């Protein structure tokens, strides 16, 4: 579904991505694990088009999307849940959800009810301003808002960041349910080892802007190996 070849990107003159190559098949949940500053978020931003690739190629369903604007990529089926969630603080939860499909031809009845069935926790919050929600609720809302646009490929950037453990478990269950029900294709960027292990089928390790290794999720239990390649220990 998604093919990335030798992708490079930079902030100004500082190179961040140094030749990323990876591919994601339909229905797969791929984790990307790495330290802060290794290029995880930059990779997702380049896949989204916020950052222009300086070299390399991004193929979506065989089409070259490397030069497209973010909104054009979204219209081709990519969904984005950014780091920090980026809820519209002054819009109600309902309007935040509506923004998720505002650029499509879908209407309220087609989207809101089914989404609330998947995310019952948002139901009592619909008329509250997005800015008044807790971090965990905002994260759930951000995922729901993304799914409102019916993406085929979801880019998920550190959904556990700054969220209390009980809510992290809830989000993990939610994502597992969604993956099984809707056969979503997901790229999940994380530092939280348990979370990424619980969800991913395979995990790519990113170091200094390149994918250095691919690990099957079950091998992530081998903490020595992880310590060696990622520098993260449990």
């Amino acid at each position, binding site marked *: 579904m998604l093919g990335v070849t030798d992708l490079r990107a930079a902030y100004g003159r500082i190179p961040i991505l140094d030749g990323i190559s990876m591919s994601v098949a339909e229905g797969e949940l791929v984790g990307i694990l790495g330290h802060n500053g290794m290029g995880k978020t930059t990779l997702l931003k380049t896949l*989204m088009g*916020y950052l222009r690739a300086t070299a390399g190629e991004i193929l979506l369903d065989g089409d070259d999307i490397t030069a497209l*604007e*973010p*909104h054009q990529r*979204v*219209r081709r089926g990519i969904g*984005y849940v*950014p780091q920090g969630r*980026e809820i*519209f*603080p*002054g*819009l*109600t939860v309902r*309007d935040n959800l*509506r*923004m*998720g499909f*505002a*650029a*499509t031809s879908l209407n309220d009845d087609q989207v809101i009810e089914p989404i609330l069935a998947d995310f019952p926790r948002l139901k009592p919050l619909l008329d509250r*301003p997005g*800015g*008044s929600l807790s971090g965990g609720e905002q994260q759930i809302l951000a995922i729901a*808002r*993304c799914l409102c*646009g019916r993406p085929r490929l979801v880019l998920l950037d550190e959904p556990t960041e700054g969220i209390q453990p009980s809510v992290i478990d809830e989000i993990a269950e939610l994502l597992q349910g969604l993956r099984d029900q809707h056969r979503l294709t997901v790229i999940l960027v994380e530092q939280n080892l348990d979370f990424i292990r619980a969800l991913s089928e395979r995990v790519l390790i990113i170091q200094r802007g390149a994918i250095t290794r691919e690990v099957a999720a079950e091998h992530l239990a081998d903490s020595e190996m992880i310590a060696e390649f990622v520098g993260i220990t449990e």
Partner: protein
Amino acid sequence: MEQVAIYAYQIGVSFSIFILISLGLAVIFGMMRVINLAQGEFLMLGAYACVLATQAGLSLWLSMFVAAAVVGLFGIVVERVIIRFLYGRIVDTLLATWGLSLFLVGGITTLFGPQSESVVNPLGNVTVGDIALSQYSLAMIAIAIALLIGTYCLWRFTRFGLIVRGTMQNPDMARGLGVNTDRVFMLTFGFGAALTGFAGAVLVPITGAAPPMGVFFIAKAFITVISGGHLPLIGTVSASAIFGAIDGFVAFVSSSVVGEMSVLFVAIILLRLLPMGITGHLRRGL
């Protein structure tokens, strides 16, 4: 009884003038944070468009819509050619729009001369007791309220309004949800310009159209929108109500110059007491 009617009339007229001159700015500055110093000249262009349209034989009412369309399109051109390169660059925006304002005043003076143009007021007077009230001023109050309600409904109840509100709060996220924010900025600026052009046309029968007319309104418009605070529509309405009441009352018992001075005085005190503006503490709304 007559006295009450007269005061209500004066205050209503003042209120509607504040609404008319500020509504476009509430969109362009209040929502988009673009400090458009050519805002007064947009009003002036609307006035001239209205004068030309009536001279071409259209009715005044139709000419108002022509003025809105002309200035709206002009606003879109300005956004494409100048403003879109300057989002977030306040000083550059100030300079560019100031230059645009000088250019427009000069251009219109060259084309039409420095004298004031006018249109015939199509409506007569109504008398309340011994005093005659201008029907056109009453119509102007109704138009201002209609524009206000129309704009509120557009932002509050349509998909375009939702997209605009979301885009103005967080353009990057809006793009990440598939919104073509470049186009949203263009259309929103154009809409603000169209509102301003419409207002300019509505004012013509009262003020006439002259090249420097924008200068008389722009300060009032900025004071109103800034005093309103971060919610552009509710803020502008409440600030217009306060300033309109003061201006209408003081201008009636004293003179219009004293009326304007008292508005400025009240605005200074208001912003001293509420530095975030009237709606500074409200969390959400329009």
